[in-house]
């Protein structure tokens, strides 16, 4: 295999890893505060990408500067999904706190289907893939045989900055302190005067905005979005979060890159390569879950319900 191809695999793997990490951080945040898994997270990502796309369609005639367009697209997608995430938490997840954990699982799975199908049915011509505009400069950098496009670099840095920002919010701000307090012990946090519902809603908003960012990033990187994109990204992102240990942000980031590395190596090394890459990745999930049901980095509790 030549160096150029290897470099392409490396860039691909890093971008995938970052997307998985963004999704996984969302899963880990939700699990941290409420001990729930929101299976509709991947589909929130899809809706975020389509919100961004719709925003672009609406503003492309009036605003000509790509940078400004991109900023508006990203902000619209993230704000929209933050609101959607908070609404989901308020009306579907919080009311089921007393019910068996299975009901939360089912309701979010079904919500994912509703979101996915709504995009397919109600977005104009939603059942076909949409070409996402490339709003970033695509100047290639060449180092010998190794080529990277500028937009990949910008996306990667922006994604890392996004994760760093969440990290700062969680660990350095008063809001983050409240989130961590709720995650540690909701009852005690309440007696200390923390507004439990507000913290939950904000956490879901942050996680969902991250998913929207990942969705826009996915669209910009592959220049294509479709209504089913979130299903696989959600499954892979959740697996990454589990591999890294749920409730642990560093674990989620590590899990995201680890999972992407596995997938990329699998696609590169397997003889029948790319056609079976999703089959391979899904099989890896099943094997990993069997081998280490608590993830590679152990979760804060060993309760598996």
């Amino acid at each position, binding site marked *: 295999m030549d160096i150029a191809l290897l470099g392409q695999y490396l860039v691909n793997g890093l971008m995938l890893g970052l997307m998985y990490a963004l999704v996984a951080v969302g899963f880990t945040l939700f699990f941290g505060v409420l001990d729930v*898994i929101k*299976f509709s997270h991947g589909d929130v990502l899809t809706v975020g990408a389509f919100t961004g796309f719709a925003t672009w369609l609406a503003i492309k005639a009036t605003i000509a500067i790509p940078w400004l367009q991109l900023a508006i697209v990203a902000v619209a997608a993230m704000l929209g999904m933050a609101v959607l995430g908070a609404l989901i938490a308020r009306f*579907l997840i919080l*009311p*089921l706190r007393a*019910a068996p*954990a*299975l*009901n939360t*699982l*089912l*309701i979010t*799975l*079904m*919500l994912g*289907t*509703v979101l996915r*199908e*709504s995009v397919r*049915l109600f977005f104009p011509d939603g059942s076909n893939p949409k070409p996402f505009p490339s709003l970033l400069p695509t100047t290639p950098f060449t180092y010998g045989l190794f080529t990277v496009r500028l937009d990949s670099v910008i996306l990667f840095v922006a994604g890392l900055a996004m994760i760093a920002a969440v990290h700062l919010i969680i660990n350095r701000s008063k809001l983050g302190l409240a989130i961590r307090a709720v995650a540690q012990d909701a009852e005690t946090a309440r007696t200390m005067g923390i507004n439990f519902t507000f913290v939950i809603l904000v956490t879901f908003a942050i996680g969902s905005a991250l998913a929207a960012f990942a969705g826009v990033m996915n669209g910009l990187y592959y220049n294509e979005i479709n209504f089913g994109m979130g*299903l*696989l990204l959600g*499954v892979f992102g*959740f*697996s990454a979060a*589990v591999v890294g240990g749920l409730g642990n942000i560093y674990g989620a980031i590590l899990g995201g890159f680890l999972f992407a590395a596995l997938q990329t190596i699998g696609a590169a090394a397997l003889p029948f390569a790319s*056609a*079976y890459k*999703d*089959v391979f990745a*899904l*099989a890896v*999930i*099943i094997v990993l*879950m*069997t081998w280490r*049901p608590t993830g590679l980095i152990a979760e804060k509790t060993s309760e*598996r*319900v």
Partner: protein
Amino acid sequence: MPPPALASRLPAIGCVALATVYGVAFLAAESQAAVGALLALAAAAIALAARAGLLETVRASIGANPATFDVAAVTGVLAAAAWLHHQHFAILMMTTAMLLAVAALGLTVQFGFAGVVNFAGAAFLGIGCYTAAIVTKYTALPALLTLPLGGLAAALIGSILILPVLRTRGHYAALVTIAFGILFKTFLEVNDALGGPQGMQVKPIVLLGWNLSKPIHLGTFTVSFYFSYLLLALALLALCFVLVRRLERSWIGLSLDAIRLDEVASACYGLDIARWKVLAFTLGNVLAGCAGAVYGHVLGFIAPNNFTFADSLVLVSIVLLGGIGNVWGATVAAAFVVILPEKLQIIQEYRFALYAALVILILLFRPQGLLPRPLRAYLPGWTPKSP
């Protein structure tokens, strides 16, 4: 105990008779307006019956005479099928509903009895279908053998998942089965030996020179070419129904219920959790696989797109709509879920979203399902007092 009087059986029989007449009218309704009117009529009738306390009478009658009710239900299906014998589409819908009911019974065993989640129901249905396709294409085995072979294949492939499902719980087990369901469909799409995205043809069942996919002629009297499959599906459904209900009432069902409700306590009382979970999981897959084999023959042509994750969720919706663990509920819900979008074409395109939304509403407002599972009756004739 003396046999119950005829009077106590009448409400059950009347209920089945009404349902049969309604079903025939619904299946035969041509215009969308007629379908809509029939739906409104059913809703009004049920609301009125509930107000008049008739539903309780019927429920008590069914509870006291389960055998009468079963015989009446089979007779009802046969009567409806005989009335609609020449209408291919109506017979096909009834057949599909019964086969999906068998798969839903399988899920009921896994999900409703043992509490083992399975979000790959459509994949196990698909394993049955593809087994039927492969067996009829590459071997000279009698085609009726595809039925047990489909179940066997589903059990064998499902056994790959036994270890992951046993070692994980709740969300994690869900992830494993979701991953398997998507894996199955993706695998079919990229595997050329199984037809790739175009799918495979399934040859009809030929039994002693009698091709089940040919119309039956008796003199001038012609019966739809789906009719033989309807009889086969009805037989399969009846068999599985009896099996699942026997299982529910037996000490095995009691063990499964105990494990679902509290694993730690059951283990303390000496129940082998792994064994019962494996049994329930495998039995459920076998039912789905058998149903899938027949379904493959009925469809005649199968493609990966018949077995998507959304289809798996529809199967789960059937179980939830009917009331988790309620055997009759799953059967009725399967008929509802299959037939409604076919007749009411306005919702055909929206069916996945619609069922998902329905399940969300049910989980929020009526978590026990539309027809909640009745409390276990430990002795015949014993009616549990409602708490």
